[in-house]
């Protein structure tokens, strides 16, 4: 699959690469400031995982371009309540975790983005952020 092969490629290069489009997340603010036509994928190290409202935030350290120094990026998600419904917990990430991350960057070039997907390298667990299906389907079990 295209995304996987691209992820392997950027892991090999240890720097970020650009993938295709994705879907918006949800919020107490508009997500129009994120460029959903651009998905950046790279290996990264978790610096901090903030399980707070209204948006959970994942701080990562990644190398933006081959040979460049590492940079810290702040990636936003929806709320803890919504993420709980798709299997996340406050300990889904720990500082130091090595991950393969995909996110949609801020349009203004600042080091922020909307989280799309992360694979924890040590376990292979993949975490995604879309809660739409979970919230729009009755779960009565």
């Amino acid at each position, binding site marked *: 699959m295209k995304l996987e092969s691209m992820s392997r490629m950027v892991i090999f290069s240890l720097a970020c690469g650009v993938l295709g489009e994705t879907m918006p997340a949800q919020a*107490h603010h508009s997500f*129009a*400031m994120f460029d959903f036509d651009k998905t950046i994928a790279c290996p990264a190290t978790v610096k901090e995982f903030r399980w*707070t409202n209204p948006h959970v935030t994942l701080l990562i350290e990644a190398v933006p371009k081959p040979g460049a120094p590492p940079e*810290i990026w702040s990636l936003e998600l929806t709320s803890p309540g*919504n993420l709980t419904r798709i299997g996340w917990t406050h300990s889904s990430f720990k500082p130091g975790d090595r991950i393969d991350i995909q996110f949609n960057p801020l349009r203004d070039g600042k080091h922020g983005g909307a989280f799309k997907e992360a694979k924890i390298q040590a376990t292979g667990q993949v975490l995604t952020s879309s809660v739409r299906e979970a919230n*729009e389907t*009755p779960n009565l079990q």
Partner: protein
Amino acid sequence: MRVDRRSRSTAFGLAVTGMAWLATGAVQAADSVLNAAPKPADWAALAQLPDWSGVWTPNTSDQERREKADPIPWNPKAAAEIRKLEAQERAGNPKGLFVNCLPEGMPSWMLITHNAMEFLFTPGRVSILGEMDGNRLRRIYTDGRPHPSDPDPSFHGHSIGHWEDGTLVVDTVGILPEAYIAPSEAVGLPNNGDMHVVEHIHLAGPDRLEDDLEVTAPHVLTKTWKTSRFMVRQRARKYDIAEGVCIQGNFSEAKDSAGNAVFVPVPETEGGNWLPPAK
């Protein structure tokens, strides 16, 4: 005045329809200054009401469809402002209406929330508890009281309700003029005062709850705006309402010089996005 007429008709309805009205419990005289203690019959009567138990999650896709399908009848001045906000959002530079974490208020909470809510029935009242913020809370009095003659303005206004064949009819006034009429987080305007919201909330299927809204806002709309939203029922415990303190997001957890766990402000963009620390 419209509200007083509704209140008189409510009292008449109570007299003639008996159990249907008693199901709301602890009926109050319009001029009562006390909230009467509910009697066992008032609690028992709650069992006659429709089953709205569980957690209800809004259908975000439907919100987006309704945004286009039920255009808001803005007056010309408001429409011009809305066009500017829409252009800002299209340009990827949206104005965040709610990034200050003040409540969406009425009617926007019911229109655009992406968070769950639940409905609690007690004698004489229906309470709506939202997931995001302890202050996203509506108290709908179903004990027959009228609106105050001069209610203190609030984000969610003063709501009175009654039941009609399984439908909760809610009348809300006293909403702050600053409360937005917002079809999205980036596009909307303050109602500018004198807003009146009527809702018919009802089950439209075993696990689908609809809120049909009629919003009258004479300072920004040319006529009453009618729209509808729906939620779906969740019973899995992973949907239980979580605490959601919006302004907590403006702070990061840290230790002070004495080792105490404290919150410290974090830098944000104008749009409400956290920025990473320099190092």
